[in-house]
């Protein structure tokens, strides 16, 4: 459904800042009918990629196809296949739910009986049926998100793009939104690409793509991604993480990554994190405030995969500071 080939996007620099590469040589292929989560730390290029996919930005180099249509040459056809839910609301809050839906339908050439039947469908799965005449500004956050989703689905898109759609929702509304999304996706046979930071949302999707520094670091099923971390993860909360990391490296030959005040060891010797835990407690009790062995969750894979990229950024930042000083 989506085919991205060697995509590069460089933002023009200003007088005081150099040009910035937001996406570099990214190739990604998402087959029809998949539910994919696109994740990455802030500034990883997700949003830029998202803007390019919606046709709001024109990339520096590379090609993007949606449903076989080149989004640069045949953008109208690509747009017609795509529904987009933005992070910030794209409905007019001064208008009623019905008016918003009607405008969206009109923009897509959907009128009369066709519009009414789609509207009835939308009312079947949303909780909006009693509130069609109400202005969107009077709805709760969860309901107004439903308006956004209903609006997009009126046109039966083959591809649904969502940019952190659950930001700002409470856990119950978030779950409601995702459940609706999941069942609609199955009913309508849509391909879904959703950017998200929330890994609990990603555990039962078809695939997860992780970006950092404009590059695609991983794209796999959640299961396969979890298997990348063979064995368990050891997390140590230490008052002096750097000292402890150095000792672990010198004495035990174990590489620990610092992540805030925590040290993370993704690959314990012989894949035995429990044995390592015992060893750490015996030898460095004074340097340990808390210690945990856990099964790797997607979030751990994310931290593992992006750690290197994060280090690069930190290095670049400290270089810049030195240059400035």
């Amino acid at each position, binding site marked *: 459904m989506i085919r991205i080939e060697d995509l590069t996007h460089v933002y023009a620099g200003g007088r005081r800042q150099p040009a910035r590469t937001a996406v570099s040589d990214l190739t990604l292929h998402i087959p029809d009918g998949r539910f994919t989560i696109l994740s990455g730390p802030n500034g990883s290029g997700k949003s830029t990629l998202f803007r390019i996919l919606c046709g709001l930005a024109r990339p520096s180099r590379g090609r993007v196809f949606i449903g076989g249509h080149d989004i640069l040459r045949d953008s109208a056809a690509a747009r017609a296949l795509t529904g987009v839910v933005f992070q910030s609301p794209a409905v007019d809050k*001064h208008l009623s739910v019905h008016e918003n839906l009607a405008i969206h339908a009109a923009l897509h050439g959907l009128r009369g009986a066709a519009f009414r039947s789609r509207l009835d469908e939308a009312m079947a799965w949303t909780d909006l049926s009693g509130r069609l005449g109400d202005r969107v500004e009077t709805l709760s956050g969860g309901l107004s998100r439903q308006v956004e989703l209903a609006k997009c689905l009126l046109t039966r898109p*083959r591809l649904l793009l969502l940019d952190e759609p659950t930001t700002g929702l409470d856990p119950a509304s978030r779950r409601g939104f995702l459940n609706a999304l999941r069942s609609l996706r199955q009913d309508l046979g849509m391909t879904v690409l959703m950017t998200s930071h929330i890994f609990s949302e990603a555990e039962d999707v078809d695939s997860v793509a992780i970006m950092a520094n404009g590059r695609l670091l991983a794209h796999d099923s959640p299961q396969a991604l979890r298997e990348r971390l063979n064995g368990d993860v050891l997390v140590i909360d230490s008052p002096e993480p750097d000292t402890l990391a150095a000792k672990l490296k010198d004495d035990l030959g174990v590489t620990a990554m610092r992540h805030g005040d925590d040290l993370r060891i993704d690959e314990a010797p012989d894949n035995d994190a429990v044995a390592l835990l015992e060893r750490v407690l015996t030898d460095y009790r004074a340097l340990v405030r808390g210690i945990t062995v856990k099964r790797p969750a997607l979030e751990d894979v994310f931290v593992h995969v992006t750690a290197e990229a994060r280090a690069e950024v930190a290095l670049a930042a400290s270089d810049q500071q030195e240059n400035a000083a």
Partner: protein
Amino acid sequence: MTYAGNASARPSTGAMASDDEGATDVAPRASLMAVAVALARREFTRFIRQPHRVMGSIGQPLIFWVLLGAGLTPSFSAPGMEGMSYLEYFYPGVLMMMILFASVFASITIIEDRDQGFLQGVLVAPVSRLGIVMGKVGGASLVALFQAGILLIAAPFIGLAPGIGGWILLALTLVVVSLGFTGLGFLFAWGMKSTAGFHAMMMVIMMPMWVLSGAFFPIAGVPGWLYWIMILNPVTHGMTILRAPFYDDPLTLLGTGDYLLALAIVVASVALCLALAAHRVGRREAGITVPGS
């Protein structure tokens, strides 16, 4: 980038076209007109739902007119306009001011809508870029016409009584001029991040265009440098064609060289503004070109 949006004749292909590797079928699309009408209707609905905006946009020019008109009438004596009160002279100028303000308001909503709001969804829809511009601009014209219509009720009381043809010509003129102003506002507003920046733009560019259009004081008798600025200002010619129907009937006007010249200048300027606005909307934020790897 832009494309003709009138492919609505295409038959509906059911909702789900199957696809594997080939290009997926595309559903019917809205015509340019349908897009413009849907968006324009939204503008007008929003306007009517905000009573403060309705009150303010009618009240302010009215207050300007009554106060300035009353205050300046004793000292107003322009050459060739003996016997005309300032209240009467200023009246078409106030109509122009209403149009200007309606356009400014409409343009400000563009800034609010574009990156964080309603327009995001419009921009990713398969609609022609000109349709987006026409929707906004058309909506603003409707609003302007509505406001001006209320002020036009006052015309007979100051002795201005055009015939039916004159009223129609006036309405058409108001629409054309308002398309131009909103097109111009659109051009400025599109790239802006904040409404504060637009206010500055309005005070520095749009307000002076109005002041120096003959709306406020006649062009006759101004210093030479000002004369040239006013002649080069398209709004001056807008003022000419807005003032004329109050005094001459449409058929006479359409045979007058000066009127036709002013009309031509106005239509050309409006078309230019709209074309530039559509072009501006069609331009996507682009990454800089980098050599292939």
